């Protein structure tokens, strides 16, 4: 079932000197429980799409249509932005606190998530006591706590070192699938995109337009780190590599 439809979305940034066209007529549809990844050169305006869906920025033109009313959007950024002065549990409750409605159930739900994903011993710890991978899991649970209908992941693993990145993307992928969430992720890492996505959307250089959409069909599709070894992985990699405009800036 379709959850979100983006139609002819455009975005211009106005500066003193000129008007920068970041997005041009982007159309995209996202189904429930789908994992969609946007890839494109850095600075292409991928993140802008997320910001507009998440209502952090205004669009210049086009439509964003949700199939349901009062849709809740959860955001995850490159920096985990855990607050060092709050405990892990309080960090996870942040979104709920802002909405001023912490019920017993909410607290139970958060504690359940922490337990399920191996963090219950760290509830009262402060973020500095956690590893990079754990921090990113806490950041995801903080987002899941508000029970969002769609997750927007803005280069969530870019700040991590390579090995952590592979394991954390497995973790995050499992959590998202397990909690049956719809996700829209942005990355410039082609391998990461193919290994996680149901669909990869390739964007061009600025102004970003949709160049191609790939449905990732692999036999025995499992967790991202295993998908990287799939025989069809290279096929998709090469196709997407060719789509990206290299060295044109």
């Amino acid at each position, binding site marked *: 079932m379709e959850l979100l439809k983006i139609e002819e979305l455009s975005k211009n940034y106005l500066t003193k000197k000129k008007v920068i066209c970041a997005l041009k007529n982007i159309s995209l549809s996202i189904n429930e429980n789908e994992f969609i990844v946007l890839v494109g050169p850095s600075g292409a305006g991928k993140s802008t799409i997320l910001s507009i869906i*998440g209502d*952090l920025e205004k669009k210049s033109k086009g439509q964003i249509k949700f199939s349901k009313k009062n849709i809740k*959007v*959860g*955001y995850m*950024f*490159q*920096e985990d*932005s855990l*607050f*060092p*002065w709050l405990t892990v549990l309080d960090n996870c409750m*942040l*979104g709920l*606190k*802002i*909405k001023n409605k912490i019920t017993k159930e909410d607290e139970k739900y958060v504690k359940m998530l922490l337990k399920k994903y191996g963090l219950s011993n760290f509830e009262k710890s*402060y973020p*500095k006591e956690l590893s990079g991978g754990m921090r990113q899991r806490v950041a995801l649970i903080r987002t899941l706590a*508000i029970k969002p209908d769609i997750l927007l992941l803005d280069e969530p693993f870019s700040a991590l070192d390579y090995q952590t990145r592979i394991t954390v993307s497995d973790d995050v992928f499992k959590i998202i699938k397990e909690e049956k969430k719809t996700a829209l992720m942005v990355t410039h890492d082609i391998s990461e995109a193919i290994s996680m996505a149901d669909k990869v959307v390739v964007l061009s250089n600025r102004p970003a337009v949709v160049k191609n959409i790939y449905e990732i069909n692999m036999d025995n599709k499992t967790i991202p780190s295993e998908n990287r070894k799939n025989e069809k992985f290279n096929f998709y990699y090469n196709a997407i590599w060719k789509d990206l405009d290299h060295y044109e800036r």
Partner: protein
Amino acid sequence: MNANNEHKKYLKKLKLRTIKVIFFQIFILLLFIILWQILSDKGIINSFLCSSPKKVVNTIISLWKSNDLIIHIWVTLKEILISFSLGTIIGILFAAFLWWFPFASRVLDPYLTIINSLPKVSLGPIIIIWAGANQQSIILMALLISVISTIISVYVGFKQTNKTSIRLLQSFKANKFQIFTKVVFPSNINTIISSLKINLSMTFVGVIMGELLVSKQGLGYLINYGSQVFNTSLVITGVVLLGILTSVLYFIILFVENKLKKEW
């Protein structure tokens, strides 16, 4: 050599180094006091102009006996505490105001810069005319000197709050007040504490300046009175007491800083 032993040796070396530093710090102070005493005893320096450690101690004792010592220290301390707390509260509130209204901060920017670089002492005479020759003038003076630098340093901290943290709260649909109380303020606790240190020394300057201009009691009064009657022992006693008072207050702030910082 096993690792445990090596570590023990290393710790011992560190400890020895610290002891050496403290030893020399005390040594320099004692050397200074002893030399000062000997030179004035031998008449090499004029003890009427430069006083001597013994005279300073005698002055403190006689001030203590006449009950003046506590009164003068207390008056100065009170003025410092009042202007310091007022300066901190007003400074933080004003910085919050500037953060809340970016337009106002742009408008006020040149004024803050000019007032900050203006030697506030030059306003002393007019403050006395406005507020009268009393403690209020002294507090106002100290406030004027300390508050602007507090405003500027705290506001800069507020403005440099991590953008992603703010976006995160916006993604939770937080309002501006929540953004301030949940991120901007708590993430700037360290900025505020370091501004307290500057604020304290500025307040000292302001209070003593005010006391020199207009006062009937206080350490600044003691210094001023001493110079008028050519009692240099009294002047130096005032300075020494001031030095002790500054150090005590400074260490209290350091203590508070360590307490607050340790939490995260």
